C-alpha cells in the first residue's frame, strides 16, 4: 500500500490552503453580520389557514394596516394577494422618520414576494405562513415594496409604497 499515496503538488497544496482560508473568512464575515450586527433572515412566525386568513374577523389580516404598538414602533399587517387584482393591502403606508416597523405579511392565494427597496427587507410570502421582518426607517422618502415571486399575469404590476415623513 505504501506506493498508493495521494500525490499532491506543493502549488496545489498551497492553493487548497488558500481556498480553505478564503472560505473561512467569507463564513466569518457572514457570521459577524448575522450574529454581531443582527442582520438576520426571517424566522418561523406563525402558521395560518390561507382560506380564512383574510376573512376571519379574529385574523389581523381581515383588517390589514398599520398599528402603533408603542411610540415610534409599528406593526404592519399586510395581505399580498393575486385575486382579484394583484395587490398589497394596504397599498400605502405612512410613518414618521425614525420609526421601527415590523411587517407581518401573508397570502390568501399563491406565493408572492415582498421586497422593500433600499432596505434589507426582502422575503417570500407563502400561503399558510406569516413572514416577518423589522425595518427601521431613519431617512424620509418613499420606499416602494414590490412583488418578487411570480404570482400570475399581474405579477409585474404588484407593488405598494411606504412614505416616511420627516
Amino acid at each position, binding site marked *: 500500500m505504501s506506493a*498508493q499515496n495521494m500525490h499532491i503538488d506543493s502549488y496545489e497544496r498551497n492553493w487548497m490552503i488558500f481556498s480553505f482560508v478564503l472560505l473561512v473568512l467569507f463564513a466569518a464575515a457572514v457570521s459577524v453580520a448575522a450574529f454581531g450586527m443582527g442582520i438576520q433572515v426571517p424566522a418561523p412566525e406563525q402558521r395560518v389557514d390561507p382560506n380564512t386568513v383574510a376573512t376571519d374577523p379574529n385574523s389581523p389580516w381581515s383588517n390589514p394596516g398599520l398599528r402603533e404598538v408603542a411610540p415610534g414602533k409599528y406593526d404592519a399587517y399586510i395581505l399580498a394577494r393575486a385575486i382579484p387584482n394583484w395587490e398589497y393591502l394596504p397599498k400605502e403606508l405612512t410613518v414618521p422618520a425614525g420609526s421601527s416597523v415590523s411587517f407581518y405579511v401573508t397570502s390568501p392565494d399563491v406565493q408572492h414576494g415582498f421586497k422593500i427597496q433600499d432596505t434589507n427587507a426582502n422575503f417570500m410570502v407563502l400561503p399558510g*405562513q406569516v413572514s416577518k421582518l423589522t425595518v427601521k426607517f431613519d431617512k424620509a422618502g418613499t420606499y416602494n415594496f414590490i412583488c418578487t415571486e411570480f404570482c400570475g399575469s399581474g405579477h409585474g404590476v404588484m407593488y405598494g409604497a411606504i412614505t416616511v415623513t420627516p
Partner: protein
Amino acid sequence: MKQYQVSAAEKKFIGSHILVAVLALAVGSLFGPLQAFEHAGWDVYVYLKPLIKSYYQGLTVHGVLNALVWTTFFIMGFLTFNVIFGLKRPLKNIVLNKVGFWLMVVGVVAAAIPVLLNEATVLFTFYPPLKANPFFYIGLTLVVVGSWVEGWGLLITYFDWRKENANERTPFVAFASLVTFVLWQICTLGVAVEILTMLLPWSLGLIKGVDPQLARTYFWFTGHPLVYFWLLPVYISWYAMLPKQAGNGKMFSDSLARLSFWIFLVLSTPLGFHHQYVDPGVPPAWKFIHAMLTFGVFFPSMMTAFTVIASLEHGARKNGGKGALGWIGKLNWSDPSVASQLLAGILFFFGGIGGLANASYNVNLVLHNTAFVPGHFHLTVATAVTLSFIGISYWMVPYLTGRKLWQPKWATIQAWTWFVGMIVFSNSMHVLGLLGAPRRVPLNLAPYVPAEWNSRLFQVGLGGAILFLSGAIYLLVMYMTATNKERVEAEVEVPIAEPMQDPALSPVWLDRWAPWIYGAFALIVLVYGPMLFDLIKNIALTSPGFRVW
C-alpha cells in the same frame, strides 16, 4: 493505437440525445431574447398573442426547455458516451437505456403540450399553489424517471466491468460520469416526492390542497444539486478532455480530480436551504448550517479550477507558451470546441463569485429574487454549462455522425458572440438586481421602474440580441454539420487527457463507492432530516390550486 470503437447503434443512440437536446435549445432560446427585448422596451409578445399568450408563458417555455430539457438530454447522452468509451465496453442492456430515453422523450412531449397551450404557465420552478395541467407534472416525472432508467443502464454496465476488473482503477471519464448520475439519482428524490405525493394527486383532484412551504423544501432538495448535475459533466470535459484539445496537455492531478467528484457527491444535496433563506417556515439555524455547507461545496470547485488551469498550462508550455499569463495565447484557440470551453470557463469565474454572494446567508436579503439571480445563472448554466456543451458538440457531432464540422470559423464566431452577448446581458442583469429590479417581471410594463434603470434595461436587450444571433449561428452550424456531405477522413479522435501520474498509484479509497454514498446519506439525514420531519409532521394541505395566468 486505435481508439475503442463505440458501436454504430450506440453512436446513433447517443446522437439522438444530442438531437433532442439541440431541438429543445432551439425552441427555448427563441424565447430567451424575447424577455430581453421586452426589458429594452420592445415587446414582441404583442405580435405572438395567437400562439403565446404572455411574457410569462414565454418565460416558462424558455426555462423548461433550456434549463431542464436541453441540459438533461445532453447530459444523459454525454454520460452514456463516457461510460461506454471510458470502460471500453458496450452497454450491458441497450434496450433498458432506450426505454429510459423514450420515457424522457414522451415526458417532454407530455409536459410541452400544456405549456404551449398556456395550461402550465408556472415557470420552471412550478411553485404551488399555482396549479398546472396534470400532464405537466406527469411529463416532468417521466423525464426524471427516464433519466434514472438510463442511469441504471450505465450502472449495470459498470458492475459488469468491475467484476472483471476488480483491482483496476475506474477510468476517470467513466468514474466521474457515474458519480454524476448517482448524485442525480439521490437528489431527484426530492422533486419525485414533491410531485408524486402532492402535486400530481392534487392536480388530478385526488387531494384538495398542498403545503407550499413543504413543496418548496422538496423542490430545493433537488434544485441545487441539479446545478451540479449540469456542472459536473462540464467538469469532466474540462478535466479530462479540454487539456488534450487545447494543447496536448495532461491531467495535472487525477487523484484530486476524483476526490473533488466525491466531495460533490457528498456535499451537493444537503444545502438546499440556501435557496430558502427568506422563506418564512424554516428556522434561521438550519439556513445558517446550509450556508456553511454551501461554502464547503465551493471548495471542490476551487480544486477543479486549479487542476484544469494547471493541465491547460502544462500543454501550452510544452508548445512554447511563456510568461505568467502569456501561455494562454498558446492554447488552441482556433479550435471552436476549445474556444467555446475556454470562454465558458472565463465567465464561470464570475458566475462562481456571484454564486458565493447569493449563498452568503444575509447578503441574500438584498439579492433574493432580484435580476441578480438570472444574471448569475446565465453565467453558470447558460454559459459555463451551455457554451461548454456547445463546445463538446463541435467535436462530438462529427465523431458520432462521421460528418465534418461545417465551417469551424463560424463555430468560433458563435463562441465569441455568446461570450460577448452574455457579458453585456449578464452584467446589466447583475447591476439591475443590485439596484432592486425583481426577476421574472416584464420590467417594461412594471409601474415602479425608475429612470435610472433604463440604460441597463437597454443593455439587457442588446445582450439578448447578440445571444440570439449566436444561438442562430449554432443551430446553423449544427444543421449544416448533421447534413454535411463532406465526411471526416478517419473517425474523429476522442480527446482524452492522460493523467500525469499513473491512476493505479492513487489510493484505493478514491475508487470505493460505499463510504461516500453512506456519507452523502448521513449528511442528508443530519441536516435535512429534522426539518423535513418537522414539516411533514405538521403538514397543512390547506392551499387549493390557482390558475391566475
